[in-house]
C-alpha cells in the first residue's frame, strides 16, 4: 500500500512535467530510485520557485494577522488607527524594499556592516529567471523578502498603539523598514559579519523578531504609558475590545508562519520543509500549553490573551532553529518560550512599561530565547551558544539604540505622542475623524 501511494503522485508529476511522454525519459519511473534519477533540474526549479511564491503569500497573510491581533487587544476607539498603521506599513514596506531595502539587505560583496543599495533589478535576464540565480527567480526572492521586511515595523505598531501620533509613526516605520531592518538583516542574511562568525538565525528570531521587539521597547520608553494605565502607583489594566479578533489574528499568524519558516528553507526540499512545518507547529503548541499552564497556576486564571501570546511565543522561539532541531526539542523550545512570555508580560507591566499587545515580550524576549536555543538544541555542532548570544544581543541592542535615537529626534521635533485630549477621545476620531464601528455603540471603552 505504502509503495502504491508513493508512486501514483510521482507518476503523475513525471507525466505532467515531461509532457506526458514518460517513455522518452529513458528511466524506470516505477521505482523511487528511478524517479530520482530523472533529469529533474527544471521541474525542481519550478516547484522550488512555486513554494517560495506560496510562502510569500503566506507571509503576506501575517500582516492581516497582526492587524486583527492588535485591533483585538486594544480599545475600540483606536481601531481605525491601528488598521491604518498596518495598511501603511505593509505598503510602504514593499515599496521601500524595492527602492533600497532588498539591495541593502543582500548587497553581495560588501564591508560586512553597511551598504545602502539601490533599486531592484539587474541586467542579466537569464540569471534573473533561472537556476543560475538560486532555486527560485530573482523576483521570487524579492517578493518573499519584501513580505518579511514589513513585519519588523508591524511588531512596533502594536506596542505603541493607542497613543502614538500617526504622522510620527509613519516617518518612523518608513525609516525602520527602509534602512534599519535591511542594514541589520545584511549582517546575517546578506553575508555580513555575523554570518562570517557562524551565527545562525534560520528565519529570523533575531533578524526579525528580537529586532522588532527591541525597537518597540525603545519607542515605548520614549513614548510613555497610555493615559490611565498607571494611576497612583497602581496598574489599571486596559482591556482589549475583541478577543475574537485577537484569536483570528493569532491563528492567521500561525498559518503565515508556515511560509515564514517553511519558505526560509529557500527551496521546496521535501525533508527540510516538512521538518520545519512540524517543528514550527510543535513549538506553537508547546508555547500555548505552557502559557496556559503558567497562566492558570501563576495568574489563577486561564487568560485567553495569554494563551494566544503563548502560541506566538512558541512560534517566535522556534523561528531561529526550525530546520536544525529535532521535533522534541521544538516542543521544549516552544514551551519555555510560552512560560517566559507570561512572566515577561507581567514583569514588563509591573515596571511601568506599557505594551498593550505584549510585543516586547513575545517578539523581543522570546526572539532572544529562540536564538539562544539554537546554541543549546541545534543538531549542527557548528552552532555555538556564545556566537548565538553575541548575535542576538547585537540585533537587540542595534534595534534598541537606533529606534531610541529616532524616537528622541521625533519627540523633540514633530512630537511622538497625541495630546491628552486626543488620547481620551480615541485616535479614530482625533486622527482620522472616523469611528471603526458606526451607529450606536458602547462609548465607555
Amino acid at each position: 500500500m505504502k509503495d502504491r501511494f508513493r508512486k501514483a503522485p510521482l507518476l503523475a508529476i513525471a507525466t505532467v512535467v515531461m509532457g506526458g511522454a514518460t517513455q522518452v525519459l529513458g528511466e524506470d519511473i516505477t521505482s523511487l530510485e528511478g524517479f530520482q534519477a530523472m533529469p529533474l533540474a527544471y521541474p525542481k526549479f519550478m516547484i522550488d520557485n512555486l513554494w517560495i511564491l506560496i510562502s510569500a503569500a503566506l507571509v503576506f497573510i501575517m500582516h492581516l494577522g497582526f492587524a486583527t491581533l492588535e485591533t483585538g487587544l486594544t480599545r475600540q476607539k483606536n481601531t481605525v488607527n491601528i488598521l491604518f498603521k498596518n495598511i501603511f506599513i505593509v505598503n510602504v514596506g514593499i515599496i521601500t524594499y524595492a527602492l533600497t531595502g532588498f539591495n541593502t539587505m543582500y548587497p553581495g560583496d560588501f564591508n560586512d556592516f553597511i551598504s545602502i543599495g539601490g533599486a531592484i533589478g539587474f541586467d542579466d535576464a537569464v540569471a534573473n529567471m533561472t537556476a543560475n540565480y538560486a532555486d527560485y527567480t530573482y523576483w521570487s526572492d524579492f517578493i518573499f523578502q519584501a513580505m518579511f521586511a514589513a513585519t519588523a515595523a508591524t511588531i512596533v505598531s502594536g506596542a505603541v498603539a493607542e497613543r502614538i501620533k500617526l504622522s510620527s509613526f509613519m516617518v518612523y516605520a518608513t525609516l525602520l523598514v527602509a534602512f534599519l531592518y535591511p542594514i541589520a538583516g545584511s549582517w546575517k542574511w546578506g553575508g555580513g559579519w555575523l554570518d562570517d562568525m557562524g551565527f545562525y538565525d534560520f528565519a529570523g528570531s533575531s533578524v526579525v523578531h528580537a529586532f522588532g521587539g527591541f525597537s518597540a521597547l525603545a519607542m515605548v520608553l520614549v513614548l510613555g504609558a497610555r493615559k490611565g494605565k498607571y494611576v497612583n502607583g497602581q496598574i489599571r489594566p486596559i482591556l482589549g475590545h475583541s478577543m475574537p479578533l485577537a484569536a483570528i489574528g493569532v491563528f492567521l499568524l500561525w498559518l503565515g508562519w508556515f511560509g515564514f519558516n517553511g519558505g526560509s528553507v529557500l527551496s521546496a526540499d521535501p525533508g527540510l520543509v516538512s521538518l520545519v512545518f512540524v517543528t514550527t507547529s510543535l513549538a506553537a503548541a508547546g508555547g500555548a500549553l505552557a502559557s496556559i499552564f503558567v497562566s492558570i497556576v501563576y495568574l489563577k486564571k486561564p487568560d485567553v490573551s495569554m494563551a494566544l501570546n503563548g502560541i506566538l511565543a512558541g512560534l517566535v522561539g522556534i523561528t531561529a532553529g526550525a530546520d536544525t532541531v529535532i521535533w522534541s526539542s521544538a516542543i521544549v523550545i516552544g514551551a519555555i518560550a510560552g512560560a517566559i512570555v507570561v512572566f515577561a508580560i507581567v514583569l514588563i507591566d509591573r515596571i511601568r512599561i506599557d505594551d498593550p499587545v505584549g510585543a516586547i515580550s513575545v517578539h523581543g524576549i522570546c526572539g532572544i530565547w529562540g536564538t539562544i536555543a539554537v546554541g543549546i538544541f541545534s543538531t549542527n555542532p557548528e552552532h555555538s551558544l556564545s556566537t548565538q548570544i553575541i548575535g542576538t544581543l547585537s540585533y537587540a541592542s542595534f534595534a534598541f539604540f537606533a529606534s531610541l535615537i529616532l524616537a528622541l529626534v521625533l519627540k523633540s521635533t514633530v512630537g511622538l505622542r497625541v495630546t491628552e485630549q486626543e488620547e481620551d477621545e480615541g485616535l479614530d476620531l482625533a486622527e482620522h475623524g472616523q469611528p471603526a464601528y458606526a451607529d450606536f455603540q458602547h462609548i465607555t471603552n
Partner: protein
Amino acid sequence: MYKIEAYLRPASLEKVQEALAAVGIAGLSVLEVRGFGRQRGHREVYRGAEYTVDFVPKIKVEVAVKESDKQPAIDAIVAASKTGQTGDGKVLVSAIVEAVRVRTGETGDSAL
C-alpha cells in the same frame, strides 16, 4: 399608571419576560446598562493585573402598567429574578402623568 424600572442581572431577562407575560403585561423595553450598588463593582484579572469592574453590566427592564397591574408586575419581576445573592438588583416604581399611543392618539390606560 406606573412606570416600573427594574435593574436586574442580564441572565434573568428571559425569566422576567416570561413572568411578565404570564401576568398579562403586553409590552416591555430592555436597556443594557452599567452601574454599581453597595458592592461597588468586583475584582477581575486581565493579563496578570487585577482591576476593579466599577460598572457592572446590568439590564434595565421598563414596563408601563395600569394601577391594577402594578403589584402583580412587581411581584412577577422579583420572583423571576431573585437568586438571593448580592447583585440581584432593584425595582423602582414611579407615577406616569400621561401616556399617548402614537398610532391612534389614545390616552391614559388604553394607551398602555
